[in-house]
């Protein structure tokens, strides 16, 4: 029988770096001044710092230990299976790290003249071609630093496009299963969000959508496969409905992994597409970022893309920055985007290639279907349709027996896996969203399935242990309400008076995404 695993992470607590501090200790030093020191008056009266900042005073030895030990209290893909739905936590090739560390990339200043950065520009132009091939779109901006940044960029393009056509539209539609960044981005772009209901199959209710469209609709944003892992089979009808009122169709690329080389957003009628390279193109997510969220658009939207964009000049055979004209919405990133991540993504695109990317989708969908198949006897599938690269379970049956999705997720940690995404999408009760990705072996899927089945079996005999899980992690469940109520956002040499602010406690069952 599958059993909880002994701890994989370090259980020993680690002091704060500040608590290791001793006055006068040092790690780094500056070279001795080889020029005259600046006179005191170089900094005007009142501009000079009075109290030194409370930075840690710790030796390099202790710093290295500190961060090493912290890392040992953290789970990564390199630690084990990480089936976080919607996040495509696939293997991050080490090849990409080698590529990004080449000094010719890593030590390049963003404002060097084009003549000194031809290789970087060429890399971008070639990556743009690959991303266009994958999405079926006409051109790309690399400026967005993440998916949500791409969304805002896309919505501002949408707005610029409509304004260019003399239209001040109001509404942007999104499915009720949409990710939170979608409505948040809509607001930031100055639009209002309107949610389209899902039908009983978990797909956009096309009739409802058709009833909602109107000529104040700027566009419709959706992932496809959608956040339930289901392919929106009526996407062409959706596109027709939106286009019929002059709206634009926005593709949230979080789930692009499912269809690489198998279907293209451009062919579905999408006008704007962002990609999460930190998902689909396997760049490491860094504990929260950096990512890269390049945005691709169709021909007619090209002029609206943020500038400058990398371009190849046939005549001179040189690469250069193209500023665009005044239709461009302007800059979205201080420089050119998360170039270091783009190098990694480029290495991935080159390694996989046309054939390999297609295999990615095939294996990702195969793994998800296989795992869903293994679990559907024990947990309810939120919707019965054949999923793509991920699927959503509902723990409603388990909840009825006493264990909520959150309990199950926490217990999964004891079994030696990361938890799935929970409580998302919002439209599913006790949602557990599982995305195995293509880089996991079938044995891993089997072991995970057996763990989930074992956890279900614990509900009777072992409920208390389940509800207080995890037991083998570095900490047990933290008091999140207290964290919000009595916000402690930083360390102080003496603990400050607690400040109570009851308003800020979020819902207990927050979407973990």
């Amino acid at each position: 029988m599958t059993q909880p695993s002994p701890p994989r992470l370090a259980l020993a607590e680690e002091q704060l770096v500040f608590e290791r501090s001793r006055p006068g200790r040092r790690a780094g030093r500056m070279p001795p001044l080889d020029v005259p020191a600046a006179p005191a008056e170089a900094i005007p009266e009142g501009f000079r710092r009075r109290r030194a900042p409370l930075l840690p005073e710790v030796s390099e030895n202790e710093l290295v230990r500190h961060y090493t030990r912290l890392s040992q209290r953290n789970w990564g893909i390199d630690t084990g299976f990480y089936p976080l739905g919607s996040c495509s936590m696939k293997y991050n090739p080490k090849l990409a790290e080698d590529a990004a560390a080449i000094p010719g990339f890593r030590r390049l200043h963003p404002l060097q003249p084009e003549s000194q950065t031809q290789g970087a520009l060429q890399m971008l132009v070639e990556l743009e071609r690959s991303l266009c091939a994958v999405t079926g779109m006409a051109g790309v901006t690399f400026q967005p630093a993440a998916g949500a940044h791409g969304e805002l960029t896309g919505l501002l393009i949408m707005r610029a496009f409509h304004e260019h056509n003399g239209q001040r539209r109001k509404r942007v539609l999104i499915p009720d299963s949409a990710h939170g960044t979608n409505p948040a981005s809509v607001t930031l772009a100055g639009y209002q969000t309107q949610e389209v209901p899902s039908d009983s199959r978990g797909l956009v209710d096309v009739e409802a959508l058709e009833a909602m469209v109107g000529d104040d609709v700027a566009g419709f944003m959706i992932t496809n496969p959608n956040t339930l892992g289901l392919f929106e089979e009526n996407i062409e009808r959706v596109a027709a409905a939106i286009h019929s009122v002059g709206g634009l169709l926005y593709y949230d690329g979080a789930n692009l992994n499912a269809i690489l080389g198998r279907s293209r957003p451009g062919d579905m009628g999408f006008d704007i597409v962002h990609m999460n390279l930190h998902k689909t193109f396997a760049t490491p997510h860094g504990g929260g970022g950096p990512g890269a969220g390049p945005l691709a658009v169709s021909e007619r939207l090209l002029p609206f893309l943020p500038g400058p964009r990398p371009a190849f000049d046939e005549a001179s055979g040189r690469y250069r920055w193209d500023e665009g004209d005044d239709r461009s919405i302007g800059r979205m990133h201080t420089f050119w985007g998360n170039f270091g991540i783009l190098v990694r993504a480029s290495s991935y695109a080159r390694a996989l290639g046309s054939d390999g990317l297609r295999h990615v989708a095939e294996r990702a969908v195969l793994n998800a279907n296989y795992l869903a198949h293994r679990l559907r006897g024990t947990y309810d599938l939120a919707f019965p349709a054949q999923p793509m690269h991920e699927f959503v379970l509902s723990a409603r049956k388990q909840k009825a027996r006493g264990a909520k999705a959150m309990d199950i997720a926490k217990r999964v940690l004891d079994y030696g896996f990361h938890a799935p995404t929970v409580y998302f999408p919002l439209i599913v009760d006790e949602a557990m969203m599982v995305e195995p990705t293509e880089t996991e072996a079938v044995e891993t899927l089997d072991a995970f399935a057996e763990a989930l089945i074992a956890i279900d079996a614990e509900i009777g005999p072992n409920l208390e242990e389940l509800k207080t899980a995890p037991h083998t992690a570095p900490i047990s469940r933290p008091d999140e309400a207290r964290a919000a109520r009595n916000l402690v956002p930083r360390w102080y040499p003496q603990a400050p008076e607690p400040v109570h602010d009851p308003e800020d406690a979020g819902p207990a069952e927050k979407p973990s995404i």
Partner: protein
Amino acid sequence: MEFAPHTDADVRMMLDALGLASVDDLFAPIPSSLRYERPLDMPEGHTEIEVLRELGALAARNRSTDELVCFLGAGAYDHHVPSMVWPLLSRGEFATSYTPYQPEVSQGVLQALFEYQTMISELTGLEISNASLYDGGSALGEAVHMAASATGRKAVVLAGCINPLYAAVLRTVARGPDFELREARWGSNGTADLDAIRALADGAAAVAIQTPSFLGTLEDVAAIADVTHAAGAKLIVHFDLTSAGILEAPGVLGADIVVAEGQPLGNHLNFGGPYVGVIACRREEARRLPGRLVGETTDREGRRAFVLTLQAREQHIRRAKATSNICTNQTLNALGTSMALAWLGPEGLRELGETCLAKARYCRDRLVEVAGAKPAFDAPAFKEFAVRLAADPVRVCERAAADGYLAGLPLAEHLPGRGLDDALLIAVTERRTREEIDGLAESIARACKEEA
């Protein structure tokens, strides 16, 4: 090179278990009209050896700051990245983890971010730092959103010389909420003009300045804070964290929101990214803060624990009403910044500031002496300064590059119409030696002569 582990036998077995005949059946949910049957229009896959060869060849077509001695700044700086930083950040447990949604197995990242927040709080003089934004430009945009939300107003005064790239980003994102941007021209000494601010601050949500400014000059934050607050506006300061060992924290001087670009501490130049947007505010504004925030709490056994907190601000809960749409941020880069700061410590940060200050002054003096350059502005500066040259700065830079120097940023392109056609912006970090500075001065002197 593929990374999926499936053998043919695995695929067969799995398909059998699913009762499917072929891999194609997995894509049955896609209407046939939408199935893409051709090979993607891109090269086939390559092995690790080939990919590294290809990318190595591209990288070799760049002339990086390994090859050219870098005096170029303008928002991205060639500071020393301590050797310990990236090996630690690259540890798989950090680098390959997602946002810490499951705190029980994410204490490493959460605690490291809590420490980062503390350091940012110390450097900015404001209590609350978030866990990072995209970059210095987007941080400015988010700060304006905060100020607008706090004041219910929609205008922002851009005072002094703010990096035009930051301003450009702000201009773009301002289109969504229709923020009004009012530009308060800077004075002839390269710093903000208090009267100009006063004239425009009325009814504004915020006054935004940068110090040291894009031109390298130091702004009088306290004085500007007074003017700003008198108009009921919030003061946003874009700050250079590398100056924080010697320059007073903007929060202490009256700033309400401090933003910064964290690249210069612990992050490589990377041709412009990934960098890290820093934002800090007062406790009163905590609920307006964009992005992730880590807070301390306890677990069931009363042990200290760290969690993402005040999530009710965020997109995944508040959705259309969230303070921002940011989800993925720049955590790893933020940790790079905090590792670099921990490595420096208070004394190292002070030394860093003093060193940059002294070297920039020396460089300016040398240019004046050797190359006949004229300081473009006379306000006190930190590590960056503009000089006027006797020849076209673009041509001078080209010639200096042939000598092995990245001489700086010709200002005309970035600040057109400001009478800066002959001006060059030069940054001097602690990595530059006297010898390199002397060499630059001579190279520029030569170039000016030859171009004259």
